């Protein structure tokens, strides 16, 4: 069996496993749906952080923009948004959505979320992507927190009271399963798009920017335009992920769910690094390992789970910065298509070890 066919069969098997999972483990549907979204988080972060070398803490802005834009569209198509969000007191106004309205809302809301996130990325990108290194990292951190604080004060979108996306009508059936497939489709799509992208000229260009931006620029690459484009792509998928996330969680808190810098914002970085940044599969593996760790530690380390998380972060970045894929690549270079010369240091050390 040649390599390509084996790879294809592997992909199909994974796909089948993904499709069957909600029926095999119905109790874990929402965690698995979240896992697919985490994969999108990590993949889109890695496009910027891993492949292009711009470590962003602010990608969570696009998540939040997508989340709010989607929910607001879902409501706004049929009701007055400010009434909907003000209905937190007094009147017995109940807003209901039938299944057609619900699907229509989603069909419009998700693309709107994606588009707005992309526009936000274009705008912010042209402002801040000129910075490099830690300045970019901290500037994006500031953007993420500022976005949360603004949403937290903005009455129209519910301010600090948060926003509840439309209640799903019964015809939608099992909501977690419904969004599981959305999330899975998005993750698969993101993966395929990025896989394709990394094989193109654009992929090489962002790698060149990571390796030496000045040289890349002097070779005639329009680095700023490329960087902004990459951020837009990242934001586009993250915006859709936000729309799904909001509907999956059923409650959008401006600081804790939408613009959740200290949680989602850092986790996406962590997942990518854990799996191995700058690789295609790394973020996927990192997301899976991270989600499993997070769920297990919440169950078995009641009250200490954040200590465990903090220690995990320290351990990963201090002792394991190359990530799982990076480790595998060092250990088994042949499997990654690297030829190992018999007198190369890697081969020598392995001979010695073996």
């Amino acid at each position: 069996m040649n390599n390509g066919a084996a790879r294809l069969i592997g992909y199909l098997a994974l796909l089948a496993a993904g499709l069957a999972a909600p029926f095999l483990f119905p109790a874990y549907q929402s965690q698995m749906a979240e896992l697919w979204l985490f994969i999108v988080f990590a993949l889109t972060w890695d496009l910027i952080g891993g492949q292009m070398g711009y470590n962003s803490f602010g990608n969570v802005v696009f998540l939040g923009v997508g989340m709010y834009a989607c929910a607001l569209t879902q409501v706004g198509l049929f009701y007055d948004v400010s009434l909907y969000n003000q209905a937190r007191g007094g009147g017995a106004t109940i807003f209901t959505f039938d299944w057609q309205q619900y699907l229509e809302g989603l069909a419009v809301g998700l693309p709107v979320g994606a588009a707005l996130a992309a526009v936000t990325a274009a705008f912010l990108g042209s402002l801040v992507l000129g910075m490099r290194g830690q300045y970019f990292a901290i500037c994006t951190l500031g953007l993420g927190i500022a976005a949360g604080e603004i949403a937290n004060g903005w009455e129209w979108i519910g301010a600090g009271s948060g926003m509840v996306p439309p209640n799903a009508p019964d015809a939608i059936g099992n909501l977690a399963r419904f969004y599981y497939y959305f999330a899975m489709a998005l993750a698969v799509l993101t993966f395929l798009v990025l896989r394709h992208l990394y094989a193109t000229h654009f992929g090489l260009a962002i790698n060149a920017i990571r390796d030496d931006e000045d040289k890349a620029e002097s070779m005639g690459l329009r680095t700023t335009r490329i960087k902004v484009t990459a951020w837009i792509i990242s934001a586009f998928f993250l915006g859709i992920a936000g729309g799904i996330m909001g509907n999956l969680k059923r409650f959008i808190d401006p600081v804790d769910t939408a613009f959740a810098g200290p949680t989602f914002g850092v986790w996406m970085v962590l997942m990518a690094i854990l799996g191995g940044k700058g690789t295609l599969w790394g973020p996927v593996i990192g997301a899976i390992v991270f989600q499993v760790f997070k769920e297990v530690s919440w169950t078995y380390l009641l009250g200490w789970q954040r200590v465990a998380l903090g220690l995990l972060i320290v351990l990963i970045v201090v002792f394991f910065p190359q990530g799982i894929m990076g480790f595998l690549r060092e250990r088994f270079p042949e499997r990654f298509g690297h030829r190992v010369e018999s007198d190369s240091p890697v081969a020598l050390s392995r001979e010695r070890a073996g």
Partner: protein
Amino acid sequence: MLDNLEILVQAPVITVDLVLNGLLVGAIFALAAYGMALVWGVMNIINIAQGEFVMLGGYVAIVMVGYGLHPLLAVPAAAILLFCLGWVLYYSVIFRVVDRDLFISILATFGISIVLQQLMNTVFGGDVQIADAKLGTVFLFDGFVSLAQVKLLAFSLAAILGAILIVFLKRSRLGQAIRATAQNARAARVLGIDTNRVYAATYGLNAALCGACGALVAMAYTIHPYIGLPYTVRSFMIVVVAGLGNIGGVIFAGLSLGAAENIAGFVFGAQYQLAFVFLLLVAVLVWRNWRLARKREYLK
């Protein structure tokens, strides 16, 4: 928003009150920022756990008040304890990230910060606490301007600590070693300076500064386990504005940030005060970068 501006115009004395109170809190920001500038400049590490050190210093004060001691004693106590903590942290974690990518140090210290938050939450509970120094308030202009004595005290102590540090860095052997290492670590090593120890001392010194700062915060404001991040970000912002190794700049930027924040909170409403700080950070970075970009340079 406009009516708030109108108040300021009609009663300028309120502006004085806002600015003075802002300057008082700004001194505390400046102290923490000074520590960050030190670590950043000497070790090339951005310490996200900065705010957590402040928080820890605050808890030292609260414990001491709990034992019936005067909170002022907590300022040196917190500094000493935090120095030890910084030293230990350096030899357990930080030394592994010193010569690595800055981003690695950001994440590693972020991890440390969550651990510290959680531990304090477990030990002291999540509620706000204060270390009451039982001091009065100074009133000026018919009571329109009120300055809590404890804030004045915190301000002066911050100034004294800053001055001690500057003298220490200029005159003492260790201070000179720190400055030498900052300028050229390799040359310092060649000249027989144990840079590892210098780094440990620097990190410890930063923690000590933050600890003292935290004790002042606990006296003049409030402390709870999750209070760190705003202090970290403000420190960062002050350092970015002032530039590394510019002590005067750090002090000036810290004081102005405190004042600007207070006025912004008054004019835009308190709910946008933090948003203002963070947007200001972004704006400052964008502006500085834009100026550099004209010379085909960039922030790095």
